């Protein structure tokens, strides 16, 4: 069913998915370009937050609130709770292994 919001909703779907795509692209660029595991973790959180957030918002809009849209929101909530924890575990593992964060002038790793 297309409700009264019709065109605006379609526009929002398009805008949100493109924004999500853009931030995931930035995140991918960062994961490839940045010099060490700590800085890559920063940019990974971009894909987790706005990349996934905007795209799943678009999915929720496209699927409608009945059933699936709700699950998309739940998915965003999960990602927001679990992914920083995972990033923290990874960074802490690197720290415990003795990886010293890259600083200006170091060789790229």
């Amino acid at each position, binding site marked *: 069913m297309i409700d009264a919001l019709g065109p605006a909703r379609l526009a929002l779907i398009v805008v949100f998915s493109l924004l999500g795509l853009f931030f995931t692209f930035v995140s991918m*660029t960062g994961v490839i370009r940045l*010099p060490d595991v*700590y800085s890559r973790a*920063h940019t990974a959180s971009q894909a987790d937050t706005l990349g996934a957030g905007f795209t799943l918002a678009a999915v929720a809009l496209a699927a409608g609130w009945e059933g699936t849209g709700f699950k998309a929101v739940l998915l965003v909530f999960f990602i927001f709770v679990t992914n920083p924890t995972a990033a923290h575990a990874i960074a*802490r593992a690197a720290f415990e292994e*003795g*990886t*010293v964060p*890259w600083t200006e002038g170091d060789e790229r790793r």
Partner: protein
Amino acid sequence: MVDAPKRGSVVVPVESTPTLRATVTHLVESAAGGEFSSIHFVVFATWRRDDPDTADREAAVDRLLERVATWAEADLADVDDVEVGDVEVVTAIVGDDEYLFGADDYVRELAAYADEHDAETVVLDPEYTPVGNTTLLQPLEFALSSTDLAVREAPVTRPTRRERLRKEATGIRFAATFALSLAFYLALGDPLYWFDLASGVASAAVVAITLSRISLDADPSLSRTPIRLLRGAVYVPALLYEILKSNVVVARVILDPRMPIDPTLNRVRVIVGSGLPITTLANSITLTPGTLTVRARDGNLYVHSLIPWARDGLFDGSLERWTRFVFYGREAARLPTPRERDDVGIFQGPDATEEYPGTRADGGSIPEESTREDSPDAPAADGPVADAAASNAPAADGDEEVTAE
């Protein structure tokens, strides 16, 4: 003062130890249980009041006492059935008018202080060794036994995850876990379909039986949880705004062909309770692009920052303020920022203010001091932690390096 003399005071000599935090909690719990009416945290001054060059040491002691007082207040706030003001928390520096040698001097000062404040009990932090003298604790206990003060050691151990993992099961924890799991199950399924209902109840029961004492380490409070959820709902848009802002800034830095990054590891001491509050704060910091929580140790967060802008934002402490607001209300949000408290440090780069706290740094040399500070956390000192894992570890580590090469 207090007109209930049958509940005495307790004197606790403190210094910065890994078990201090747990000792404070133990004391507050004892006091809340009706054992004491006031808790005196004291530090022995190792200098004389009119000595030159003592400002630094005095400042360090003042910071320690301030921290202890904050912890005690946070713990008091966590205990539900105690009115604020029911338990008095006092901090003091003793012995700054004379030089203290040996255990006898300490005990004399302590007894005098206890006498002055009607205290009959002394509780010792198990790791307490005044002025870094490692052999002092035994003689201190011995010397204390000659006074009429009651002495005991706080029953705390190094706060490792292993011991915190299992708490005792209580009805309300079970109910909360059960309700939450069932709600989640039915949200995914169909709450009106009998099969989903029955299987949901069964699986929620299994989850509650096995996990209720692991996933909740305190009884959820009926009076406080709703207001926290409400304040959390206010926090979410604020957090989303922060995330949006730093996403744009970091995106610009990453897409810039010159990529002007300046990553450093920083330390920031945060004043939030352990458990859920600090997890919320650390997760919020990590969610915000540009800052990444690497470690949490003794109320310190080690945060890696990508650009100076993110570091400044971290030191301005808006997320910390929000977390305090969510868990403790508007009053607590008004504490000064980490930068104003001067509880921050930068470990790397040209602006570095502190030594890098490496556990096993491969590149740089580890300063003697920090190695010793870290040693309680090192595997050897952890004793009971997974003997089997420890014996397997070297081999596994070796394999790792071979494959990584």
